């Protein structure tokens, strides 16, 4: 069996597998939570990769490509420092978790949950955020059409209304967090949600899929907008990549 961590939703799944025809469910728990390299133990029996670590995804555009909406300095620090730190610390927490599970140290396992949620959430959220942005030349700012466009009109009356709601909720969020356009897979509708700190959208409901997330942590805008978060929110629509949101919506609502 192997333990996979889906970076997009932080879901961990145990999958069964066979190696050389030997069902790996027969392996010991210790083997399941082996180090993040497959180890050769000789022919016939081999530990399968368990705790999958994450990597910093590349941006689809240059750091300065979103100017003047978000300047290059912010994008560089945001991606190279903040997101990279979440990746590093998440991987470190996963290693510690693996070790704690292997030792049967339940206190430590529970104690690590804060760091996992924070850093893992930070990685999940930012991975989505980079996809939610695009330079104008690549469609950034172009309004959504077809199914997502209709769904927005149905749920909010108009795209303008949606933007106003997101701006209001994002500005009102106290401290750090995110504002989301979410698709509820069960109710089959769209809604605006906020999450505090680095909590991913799924913490607000297992059925919620993030279509669009806007980072309202100060590091996302401070160097350029200082304390004027409302201005950042007003301007960011110029570089929102509705094509990505539409793709996700089509897939999830099919």
């Amino acid at each position, binding site marked *: 069996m192997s333990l996979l961590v889906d970076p997009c939703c932080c879901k961990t799944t145990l999958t069964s597998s066979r190696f050389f025809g030997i069902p790996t469910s027969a392996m010991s728990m210790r083997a399941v939570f082996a180090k993040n390299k497959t180890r050769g133990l000789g022919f016939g029996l081999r530990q399968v990769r368990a705790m999958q670590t994450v990597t910093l995804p590349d941006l689809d555009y240059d750091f300065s490509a979103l100017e003047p909406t978000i300047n290059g300095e912010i994008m560089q620090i945001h991606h190279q420092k903040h997101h990279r730190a979440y990746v590093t610390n998440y991987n470190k927490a996963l290693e510690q978790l693996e070790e704690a599970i292997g030792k049967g140290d339940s206190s430590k396992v529970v104690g690590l949950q*804060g760091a996992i949620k924070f850093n893992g959430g930070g990685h999940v959220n930012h991975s989505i955020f980079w996809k939610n942005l695009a330079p104008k030349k690549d469609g950034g700012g172009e309004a959504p059409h077809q199914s997502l466009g209709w769904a927005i009109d149905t749920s909010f009356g108009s795209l303008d209304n949606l933007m106003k709601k997101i701006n209001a909720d994002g500005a009102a969020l*106290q*401290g*750090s967090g995110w504002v989301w356009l979410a698709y509820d897979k069960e109710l089959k509708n769209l809604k605006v949600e906020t999450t*505090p*700190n*680095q909590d991913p959208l799924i913490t607000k409901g297992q059925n919620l899929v993030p279509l669009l997330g806007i980072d309202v942590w*100060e590091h996302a805008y401070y160097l350029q907008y*200082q*304390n004027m978060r409302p201005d950042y929110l007003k301007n960011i629509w110029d570089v929102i990549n509705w094509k990505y949101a539409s793709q996700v919506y089509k897939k999830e609502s099919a």
Partner: protein
Amino acid sequence: MHGAVIASLSPSTSSSSSSLYPALIPFSGCISLTRQCKTHKVTRRRRAASITAQIELKPPPYSLNSLEPHMSSQTLEYHWGRHHKNHVEGLNRQIVGTELDAVSLEDIITVSYNRGNPLPAFNNASQIWNHDFFWNSMKPDGGGHPSGVLLELIERDFGSYESMLKEFKHAALNQFGSGWVWLAYKANKLDVGNAVNPFPSEKDNKLVVAKTPNAINPLVWDYSPILAIDLWEHAYCLDHENRREEYISIFMEKLVSWDVVSSRLEIAMERAAERAREKDTKEENEHTQGDDEGEEMYLDSENEDSEAE
């Protein structure tokens, strides 16, 4: 300079007179008591300023460029000149014409905390207090080490200054998101009425390190903060990007005004001693006035062994 200016949230001080927030009768009673018993309160509390109609934007006790190179003047210009100022202007707009208009900042904080479901004025009020406290926690050419009674208590309650520092930094690095970390003197009742006390009574009359999210501060737990560091990103991102640990180290090594921390501790201990005296006096009065039933209860609690015999 802020001392341990904290409203007492003892349920015994509540009254049913003039209710500001019907849902918060114990606390509106507290405000009424403050007005009625002002002279009594003054002997127990030291206020930085008398009650005024409008909350002021107080400048730090040093010029905005004098913490360089450890904290840039640009950071202070934005942090004090925009963030702190916005909180003051925001709160004044929220309280004008309401009963909170003539109430001390500390009372606004403790009332509006509302057991963790803060009312609209809480965020601004608490952040004003927090920032005033923060500016006064620093000084040009600060840092170094604590001394005197402060150092004695740090060594008593943490083992050593280095241990306290380690715990302080650990709390700061594990405050995920915006917030504050505090060194505080805890001398209060376990049930503080308006909030869930995070530390048990074993920590009474001791120094504790506490972290709080967003705008919350230890006043809501009836603690006496003596030192604080602001962990909102705006406090350090211009100077340190995302390197929060570096910011914390520089704050402790180069900026903290240990003199101010010491004098806050002195006030906090004096307040605790005064409370203890008041409690003794009250118990003594109850004992001498008590009826038979009251005396029986008193004796029972003192002589449980005799019951078992």
